[in-house]
């Protein structure tokens, strides 16, 4: 291949007055951008390698660095935008499938931002959560249709296994392999501290994390990496991964270079081989087959763990969710089209799936219409950015949410979206030892606990403002939501009124 026709994406502006040539940027950059020229005795940049991860910007002791978007003033064209041209040229150079990291960045509507919350004024007093009890406790699992109470007040009905959360939020599936062991440890420890759960993803459970088993949901995906009876019996819950919001309908390839000793041992595969998860589970070609796997897992875990089934939000999500409930799942996890990923084919990530907001209301409606809403809990994932998004998700009908990107941001991720390169400068999406140690698990844990603690306070404030004192009273309570800038069809599907109605 001759000369690359790709211009740099970013420009490294180095303030020569401030730069002291200390070479911190050189040692910190895993993408070989900064280099020290011994003859000139100066630091220079190979801008074409820059991914704008901001590691050098943050660590530069004299604040000498600014990364800017490269001023690529191509002739204006509404149809052929810069990104289209860049992607096309990259494929012309490589002949490969375009890869992307993290969630869909395209300017499609974010429906969370078109939904507004209610608050009490005069007729129903608001509640001050600082002085009055406010319950965020959430139980995930199948609920009985009716409760039988004995004369002594004890519950006689046998209750299916439940996950108990201190607030309706959990850390979503991210495998050891896609993220570093330090990042997994941060999730596990923070989940433990917060009284919630994290999810192993398809990477197996590292021996050092078995101590957090009570806060662990273990995942079973099509590659069955790291899955054995001990793994299934160890987790507090089991999740069958059918799909992921960022890449509905396709599998995953963890490249061999990330399969180092610890990853290989945890996934129980040889060193350096690609870890390939086929697109489907080849033992599941129907709802009946799904039922077979759900009960294989229940048999394997002595019916002591709730079993979740995770799907991507796709067109017929409501009917699929109904099938999953009838197949015997205790929890349905739905991942919206903005959901994150370590690596996904760009065209799939950017074009497949539906927004999670619609999926939640469609699924909640369908399960209620069929009278089976109590049989399953619904967990929503994919683009939950803050506490208000959580409140909106619960009011639309979710029991709880999963966060992934938000948790990584708390650890230090700067959303440069190059996770698939395995060189994460913040020590999160990498297996290179010198990069992994950049993420201090203690500090990461504290930051993540801080984030969720702050959100808990905010959720209580929002609930109190609505005059509600328990998250249970918010679930599916769409009266608390109003839409702005939405057409009547969208309002109908979301099951909410327009602002002013």
């Amino acid at each position, binding site marked *: 291949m001759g000369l690359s026709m790709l211009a740099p994406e970013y420009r490294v502006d180095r303030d020569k007055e401030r730069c002291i040539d200390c070479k911190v940027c050189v040692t910190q950059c895993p993408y070989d951008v900064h280099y020290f020229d011994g003859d000139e005795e100066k630091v220079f940049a190979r801008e074409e390698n820059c991914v704008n991860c901001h590691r050098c910007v943050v660590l530069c002791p004299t604040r000498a660095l600014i990364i800017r978007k490269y001023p690529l003033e191509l002739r204006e064209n509404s149809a052929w935008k810069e990104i289209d041209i860049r992607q096309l040229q990259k494929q012309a150079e490589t002949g490969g499938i375009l890869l992307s990291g993290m969630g869909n960045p395209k300017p499609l509507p974010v429906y969370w931002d078109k939904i507004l919350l209610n608050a009490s004024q005069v007729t129903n007093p608001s509640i001050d959560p600082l002085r009055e009890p406010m319950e965020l406790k959430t139980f995930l699992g199948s609920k009985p249709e009716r409760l039988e109470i004995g004369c002594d007040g004890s519950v006689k009905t046998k209750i299916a296994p439940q996950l108990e959360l201190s607030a309706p939020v959990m850390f979503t599936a991210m495998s050891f392999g896609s993220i570093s062991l330090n990042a997994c440890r941060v999730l596990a420890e923070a989940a433990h501290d917060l009284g919630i759960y994290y999810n192993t993803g398809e990477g197996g459970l590292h021996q050092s994390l078995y101590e957090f088993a009570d806060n662990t949901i273990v995942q079973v995906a099509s590659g069955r990496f790291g899955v054995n009876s001990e793994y299934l019996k160890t987790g507090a819950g089991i999740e069958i991964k059918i799909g992921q919001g960022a890449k509905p309908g396709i599998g995953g390839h963890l490249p061999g270079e990330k399969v180092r000793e610890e990853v*290989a041992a945890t996934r129980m*595969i040889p060193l350096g081989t690609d870890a390939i998860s086929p697109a489907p589970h080849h033992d599941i070609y129907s709802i009946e087959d799904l039922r077979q796997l759900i009960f294989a897992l229940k048999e*394997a875990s002595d019916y002591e763990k709730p079993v979740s089934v995770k799907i991507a939000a796709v067109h017929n999500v409501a009917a699929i969710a109904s099938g999953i409930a009838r197949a015997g799942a205790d929890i349905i996890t739905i991942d919206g089209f903005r959901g994150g990923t370590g690596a996904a084919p760009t065209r799939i990530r950017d074009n497949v799936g539906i927004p999670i907001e619609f999926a939640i209301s469609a699924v909640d409606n369908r399960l209620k219409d069929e009278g089976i809403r109590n049989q399953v809990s619904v967990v929503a994932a994919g683009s939950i950015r803050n506490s208000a998004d959580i409140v909106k998700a619960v009011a639309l009908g979710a029991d709880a949410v999963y966060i992934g990107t938000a948790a990584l941001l708390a650890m230090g991720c700067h959303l440069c979206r190059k996770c698939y390169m395995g060189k994460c400068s913040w020590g999160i999406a990498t297996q290179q030892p010198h990069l992994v140690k950049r993420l201090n698990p203690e500090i990461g844990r504290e930051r993540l606990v801080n984030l969720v603690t702050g959100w808990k306070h905010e959720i209580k404030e929002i609930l109190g403002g609505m005059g509600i004192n328990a998250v249970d009273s918010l679930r599916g309570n769409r009266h608390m939501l109003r839409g702005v800038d939405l057409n009547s069809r969208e309002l109908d599907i979301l099951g909410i009124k327009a602002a002013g109605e």
Partner: protein
Amino acid sequence: MKVLDAHKLSYKELNDMIKEEAPREKEIHIKNVRGQRYIGGTLNQGCTLYLDGVPGNDLASFMNGAHIVVSGNAQDGVGNTMNGGEIVIHGHGGDIMGYAMRGGEIYVKTEVGYRVGIHMKEFGDQVPKLIIGGSAGNFLGEYMAGGVIIVLGISYSPEDSIGSFCGTGMHGGRIYIRGEVPDYKFGKEVKEVPLEEEDYRLLEAKIKKYCRHFDYSMEEIDLKDFHKYVPKGSRPYGNLYAY
């Protein structure tokens, strides 16, 4: 030896009984097995189940070292994600036998269905092995990441002993097939390599076991007739992406 009767029992009732008995019984004989699923699931080393009849899907799923002998045929998903142990089937097996199997051995007297040995893997000392006496359906060893599959093709021509797309997506392990099978039957990720001394040792040991299990004469099988197939590389999709 404990004798259980599976007649009219649901899989849960039957498996609860097995789970209770297995830790203290060396042998459990189960009569009238009629399609109950998950028999022997997660069962540990130290117990042998003798099944009279036809066990249902997912026989020995996640099994951990126990032995199972099936007097009749088996259905789909035998040894699903099995970790160790041995299964002997005195008939034929269904689809996806040995899916993601990580350890142990499965011997099948006659045929098996589609996608058998899919995503079999190996790790350290755990090298799973599937020994098929008759023929296998399409996609044998698909996505295979480790382990051993041996097809004897007894009463089949070599061409008919496997289906199409054998070893497609294969990136680990090895497949031995008796007789010359035309190239069109294989996936594009597979290549044939000559057998070496250790291959013959492995074949001899496993085929001897097959003959013992099913009372077949070792003299009928000439080890020199076997062909060995391995993946072209451990990273079949390494060049698929534009980084």
